C-alpha cells in the first residue's frame, strides 16, 4: 500500500524547523501589533496569519507534494467559498452609507 504512494512525510528536523518558524512568526505578529503601521496593522497581522496557515497546510497537513491533486482542490474550494461569503456580505455593509 505505502509502496505505490510516494510518502510525503519529511524528516523530524524539518518539522521542528517549521515549528520554529511558526513560533517566530507568532512573536513577529505580536511585535508588529505594537508598532503603529496605520491601516497596515491588520493587513500585516492577517498576512502573517496566512503565511502560518499556509505552512501548516502545506507541510503539516502534507498538501505539498501529495500525490493527490484533489486535496489541494478541496482546500482551495473551501477558502474560495468562504471568500464569497465574506466579500459579498461586505459588499452590502460597505456600501450601506453610499448615496
Amino acid at each position: 500500500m505505502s509502496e505505490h504512494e510516494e510518502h510525503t512525510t519529511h524528516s523530524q528536523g524539518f518539522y521542528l524547523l517549521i515549528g520554529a518558524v511558526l513560533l517566530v512568526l507568532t512573536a513577529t505578529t505580536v511585535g508588529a501589533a505594537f508598532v503603529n503601521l496605520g491601516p497596515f496593522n491588520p493587513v500585516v497581522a492577517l498576512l502573517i496569519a496566512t503565511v502560518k496557515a499556509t505552512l501548516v497546510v502545506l507541510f503539516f497537513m502534507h498538501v505539498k507534494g501529495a500525490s493527490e491533486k484533489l486535496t489541494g482542490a478541496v482546500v482551495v474550494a473551501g477558502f474560495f467559498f468562504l471568500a464569497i461569503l465574506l466579500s459579498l456580505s461586505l459588499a452590502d455593509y460597505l456600501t450601506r452609507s453610499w448615496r
Partner: protein
Amino acid sequence: MSDSPVTAGSVTTMEHEAHNPALLHHFSDAQQQKNAASLGMWLFLVTEIMFFGGMFCAYLVYRVAHFNSFAAASQQLSIGMGAFNTAVLIVSSVTVVLAVKAAEAGKRKLLVGYLVVTVLLGMTFLVVKGFEYREKFERHHVPGPTFKFTDTFDDNGKQIPVNPKEAELFFSLYFAMTGMHALHMIIGCGLFSVLAIFAWKGHYSPGYFTPIENAGLYWHLVDIIWIYLFPLLYLISRHS
C-alpha cells in the same frame, strides 16, 4: 451483449485480499479505502472552515462597523495568555505531525508518547483558556445583565469613550468564537486520548494508520483557526 444482466451466481465474491483486518468489505483494496478516508476527512475540514466562516463573517462586519469599541475591548484581552496559547498549539501541531511520522515508521511507543504529549498540550491550552474566562467573569466582561465596560479606546493618545454595548458585542463574538474553538479542542483531546489507547494496543501498523493521520488533519485545522483568531481578537490596535 454489453447490457445483459449479470448472471445470477453465488454471492460469495468476497474473497478479496483481506489480509488487512481493517479493510472493509465494500472497498476493493486498502489504497482505495485510505484515499476515501482521506478525501472524506478533507471534505469534513471544509465544512469546519465554513462553520467558523459564519462567525468570521459576523466578526468582520461588526469590526468594520464598530472599530473603536472593538479595539478598546480587544485591548482588555490578555495578550500574554493568547500568545502563550498560540505557541502551545503550534508545538502541539508539531507533536502531532511527529506522531504521524512515528506511526508510519511503526514505532509504537514513540507514537503513543507523541499522542500523549499532544493531549497534554491541548489540555494546557484549555486550562489557560479557563483562566482567561475566569478573568473575564471577574471583570464583568461576560455579556449579559452583569456586563460592565468602562475603558476607553486609546487612539494615538486620545481617549475615546466607548459604547459599552458595542464592547459587549465584541465579547459576545469573543466567547462564541473561542468557545466554539475550545469545544473543538476538547473533542480533539478526547480523540487523541482514544487513539493513544488504540495505538498502545497496537491497532496501527505502517500499512494502516489512517485514523492517526485524519485526527492529525483535524488538529491542524483547529490550530489554523486559532492562528487567525489570535490576531483578530487579541491584536486590534495594540499600539498607542
